């Protein structure tokens, strides 16, 4: 069987790139080092289970019941009471200034209403601008309070300790309505890491040839622009695959992120996303004059990806103009896919729109690359 000459030429470029990549130890190390470093930094910064968080208490009565509940919270280790007040304004100021992470409020007449079985509310307001800091403490609050009550409500009040709890716990996650948790961040990191490393590395693909003076030779060879592009992109698909494997394994075993969806579907989406980023990097390298410029373009793209994709800030919390920019970025769509598949068990039908968006982005970017590719030295 005759292999098409185009495939052979892509193969020629592919082998050359692979050898050069392997020989460039620093870059190669960076491609594996960056994901691991980012995972550890982001992952552990959020996964650590912060305790001893400064807390203000707003309470107007000092009954034994309230004292028991407060004591239980403090002994849980999550909350450290730094001040007690009966003025809610004072405590919200502290929260706004970040001096306390929580404000716990007991309404007036709490004990009395609890005894009457009226299920009074306990309000925990959290500074959720750093969700990783507050989420565990909040998640534990109900258990802590319930357990304390069960101890205390003996004798005539024992009937109250049955479910539902004799009080209602209300939590307000201020400053971060979506309440992103670490489960959101580790899958998101997959997209962030792939974006950053792959765009940057292919961004240098053509500029390196220009800077080293090998461009003239490459242009003198009988290879079409599309063949050069594919040959230069394909080795890095393998790099993307390795990075994905590292992150997924870490998500599972280091951070215990649940994986409820289809791995096959996720890998399919990752492949498309990887190609989108590589194509974009290649396009950058046809626009930039030097490796430095390619690097700058990469960051110019990476920053909005990081900030406007819904990785850093909840997408729906952003102003409309920012959402519009976000919709153009492949990372935005990838985050929807990866979170959907990993955390919610989304099916192909559920993620077809973001998948289509990423594919469309790839095609457009590749066309731009072909139009921008220098066929001559001018």
């Amino acid at each position, binding site marked *: 069987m005759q292999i098409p*000459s185009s495939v*052979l030429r892509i193969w020629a470029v592919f*082998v050359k790139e692979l050898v050069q990549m392997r020989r460039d130890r620093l870059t190669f190390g960076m491609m594996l080092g960056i994901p691991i470093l980012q995972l550890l930094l982001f992952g552990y910064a959020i996964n650590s289970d912060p305790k001893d968080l400064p807390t203000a208490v707003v309470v107007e009565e000092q009954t034994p019941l309230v004292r028991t509940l407060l004591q239980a919270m403090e002994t849980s280790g999550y909350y450290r009471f730094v001040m007690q007040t009966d003025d809610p304004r004072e405590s919200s100021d502290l929260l706004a200034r970040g001096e306390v992470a929580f404000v716990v409020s007991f309404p007036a007449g709490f004990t009395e209403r609890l005894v009457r079985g009226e299920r009074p509310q306990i309000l925990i307001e959290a500074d959720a601008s750093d969700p990783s800091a507050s989420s565990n403490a909040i998640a534990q609050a109900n258990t802590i309070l319930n357990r304390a009550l069960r101890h205390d409500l003996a004798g005539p009040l024992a009937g109250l300790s049955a479910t539902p709890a004799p009080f209602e716990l209300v939590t307000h996650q201020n400053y971060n309505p979506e309440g992103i948790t670490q489960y959101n961040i580790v899958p998101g990191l997959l997209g962030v890491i792939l974006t950053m490393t792959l765009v940057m590395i292919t961004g240098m693909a053509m500029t390196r040839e220009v800077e080293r003076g*090998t461009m003239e030779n490459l242009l*003198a*060879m*009988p290879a079409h622009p599309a063949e050069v592009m594919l040959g230069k992109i394909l080795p890095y698909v393998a790099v993307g695959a390795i990075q994905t494997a590292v992150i997924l394994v870490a998500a599972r075993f280091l951070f215990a992120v649940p994986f409820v969806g289809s791995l096959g579907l996720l890998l399919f989406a990752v492949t498309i996303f990887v190609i989108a980023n590589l194509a974009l990097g290649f396009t950058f390298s046809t626009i930039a004059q030097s490796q430095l410029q390619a690097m700058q373009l990469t960051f110019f793209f990476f920053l909005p990806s990081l900030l406007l994709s819904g990785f850093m800030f909840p997408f729906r919390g952003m102003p409309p103009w920012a959402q519009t920019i976000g919709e153009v970025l492949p990372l935005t769509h990838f985050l929807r896919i990866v979170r959907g598949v990993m955390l919610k068990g989304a099916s192909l039908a559920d993620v077809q729109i973001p998948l289509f968006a990423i594919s469309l982005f790839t095609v457009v970017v590749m066309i731009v690359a072909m139009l921008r590719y220098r066929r001559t*030295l001018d």
Partner: protein
Amino acid sequence: MIATDPNALAIDVRGLVKKFGDKTAVDGVDLQMPRGQVWGFLGPNGSGKTTMIRMICGLLRTTAGEGTCLGFDIAREVNEIKLRTGYMTQKFSFWTDLTIRENLEFVARLHQLDDMSATIDRVIGNLGLMDRQKQLAGDLSGGWKQRLALAAVTMHTPKLLLLDEPTAGVDPQARRDFWDEIHRLTTEGMTVLVSTHYMDEAERCDRIVYLANGKKLTEGSVADVIRESGLFTARAEGDGVRRLASELQGKPGADHVAYFGSALHVSGADEAAMRAAIRDVSSEGVTWTDVRPSLEDAFIALMSRAGEDHRTHS
């Protein structure tokens, strides 16, 4: 559509112009080069040799002018041209982070050579680099890099070889080998256009084309160019030569005064005036002989006749 006519010109371009911004690097050059010959491209630095070669093989778009290379249009059929030409760049442009063998493999794969590894073995054997084939190309010395480049651009047996100063920095023996190789390739039917600054290399060409300031100053065989210069040259040797140079400089009749090794060549278009100038200066410790003007004399004359020296240093 392959140009099959063996009599057709290998290169046939007319009125090529190349401007970079408002600087004109090549200014209306024609070139009609038959197949199977070796032509030399000469001219001072910045005269447009490299630019001209790049336009011929489709690496630079022309600002004006048109033509064919191996029968293919230099603007529209660049890919056909690339398949059939070998272009050796002035500056080494193979991949320094690939080994000698890997560079050759890359070229061989792109040209889809049959029997790749045997071909490469043969090429490396001819180069005498068998035991260094796993060395990075960037670690080769300058002269060896040139040899590797020549081997790489001829591996696919192109019909036309464009060599841009292939022997710059190559030692004399290697330079001789290089030229023997070039002549051997032409006996196999290859056409070679080679740029050079060496007069002895120019003398080995079937025909030379002399560029200056982006214009073609002259073209012809070595004998033609010398004859066309219409020069008469006398050669002074001996201890007194150093003193003579300054005395002769600017004298009527002594159009060009230039050292050749330790000897001094005095050339003039007007034989009588030239001899008068020589008689005028003291001949103490100097012996004069009449010589055939060298190619270099002819070029110096051509240059100064064409006007001041426009050499650009950018």
